[in-house]
């Protein structure tokens, strides 16, 4: 069982959360020309890192906010959590 520290609600069990994938993926800007490759990278291609991975989770059975979680994909250790709009250094 993972325990995720929701920045809004505090420490909760993983059962309250839903996974949203790689948080480092950025949607191409709308007001500029987007190449097929850029669109491909946004929609399909993922690094799927082994080790530290910044990812989106939604606290679906809690505050329903999207949050960012920095987790190790090999050990499941969770290092830090952020609000969705927080910049991660």
């Amino acid at each position, binding site marked *: *069982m*993972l325990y995720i520290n929701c920045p809004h609600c505090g420490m909760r069990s*993983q*059962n309250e959360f*839903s*996974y949203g*994938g*790689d948080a480092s993926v950025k949607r191409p800007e709308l007001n500029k020309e987007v190449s*097929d*490759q850029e669109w*491909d*990278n946004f*929609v*399909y*291609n*993922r*690094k*799927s*890192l*082994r080790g530290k*991975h910044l*990812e989106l989770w939604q606290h679906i059975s809690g505050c329903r906010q999207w949050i960012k979680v920095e*987790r190790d*994909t*090999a*050990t*499941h250790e969770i290092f830090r959590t952020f609000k969705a709009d927080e910049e991660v250094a």
Partner: protein
Amino acid sequence: MQKYSIFNLVKNAFSNHENWDLAWKDPAPKEEYDVVIIGGGGHGLATAYYLAREHNITNVAIIEKGWIGGGNVGRNTTIIRSNYMHDENGLFSEFGMDLWRKMSQDLNYNVMFSPRGIINLAHSDAQMNAYARRGNSMRLNGIDAVLLNREQVKEIIPMADFSENVRFPIFGGLMQPSAGTARHDAVAWGYARQADSMGVDIIQNCEVIGFDVSAGKIKGIRTSRGNIKAKKVGICVAGSTNILAEKLNMTLPIETHLLQACVSEPVKPILDNVVTFGAGHFYVSQSDKGEMVMGGDLDGYNSYAQRGNLPTLQHVLTEGIAMMPFLSKLKMLRTWGGIMDMSMDGSPIIDKTHIDGLYLNCGWCYGGFKATPASGWTFAHTIAQDRVHELNAGYSLNRFSTGHLIDEKGLGTKTWIS
């Protein structure tokens, strides 16, 4: 190579079975190979076997980080089927079914292929319609499919919950009678033994740490046991695909996720077929030892852990108990997990890459084991001929850019869509 036969069994009995040959050797890597296959799982071993048998290419090495058969080929739930709607998947898998039927003879190794039939249960009229459509598509591709009504399903699996007032009543099901199971370890060992006998080097405990690429062409690989030159390199490493892709500066439409399976304590024979729950993701069959072999959903978040988490197991088994209430009386014997190369449309990739002489085999999602022979056969063809075979032409790497996705269920890595 010693043939495995009743006569040799009797003969070796006189020397207390102490004089059998080793099934495969343990060679040190040579300096150069015509083809290097990275990954000594089912698909890698099968690829080497078909390279030797179909294309007469025997200067081949299989490079395995751990030990052969230690990954997903030894961790799956052994189900073999070709009940797909789309032509690409149906024709590819049905080609594999033919190879499965001949496999024990071809490999001189009993893989215990047991065509016991698979039943996908339906729980609504809409699902029955969808199954009728899939069944018709299968039959058009020469795959056997039988649409069963509720009474027919009840005759085959009376132990399932047929009460009227349940959340997901059984309306019927789609059966592929020729589907079944096989002994998964034997598949790895059978391919390894034959490949070895034809001159393939199986090199274990050898980790790939880099690639030598110059002028857009593969020259070799760097490993923990030294550099190996190679004219061609094939990657089939399932859940580790992204780790190797990173070394090649490639990003792929693949995420690595964890899939769990479990077995109950062994009980007397009760279940003759493979049965899947249609209102979620759960499947069960009974092994020859009597254990109920069960599996279902991914853990749901990127994972390289090779071990699972309990919430998903609980969720999956809740579905199992809804389908077959007697399962709740059984004790769990073992649970385990493997890491899956989940592609974004749920279908695999067997293709060339932008690097000359480098070939990619990945994206097997939930269905890698049953694809073992067809995957090895088509990957060997793709490597040997430097072009894809018509059976794997649809499994291209660039289909995500061109929009030719094969969305059999439209799931991919997004389990919550179901």
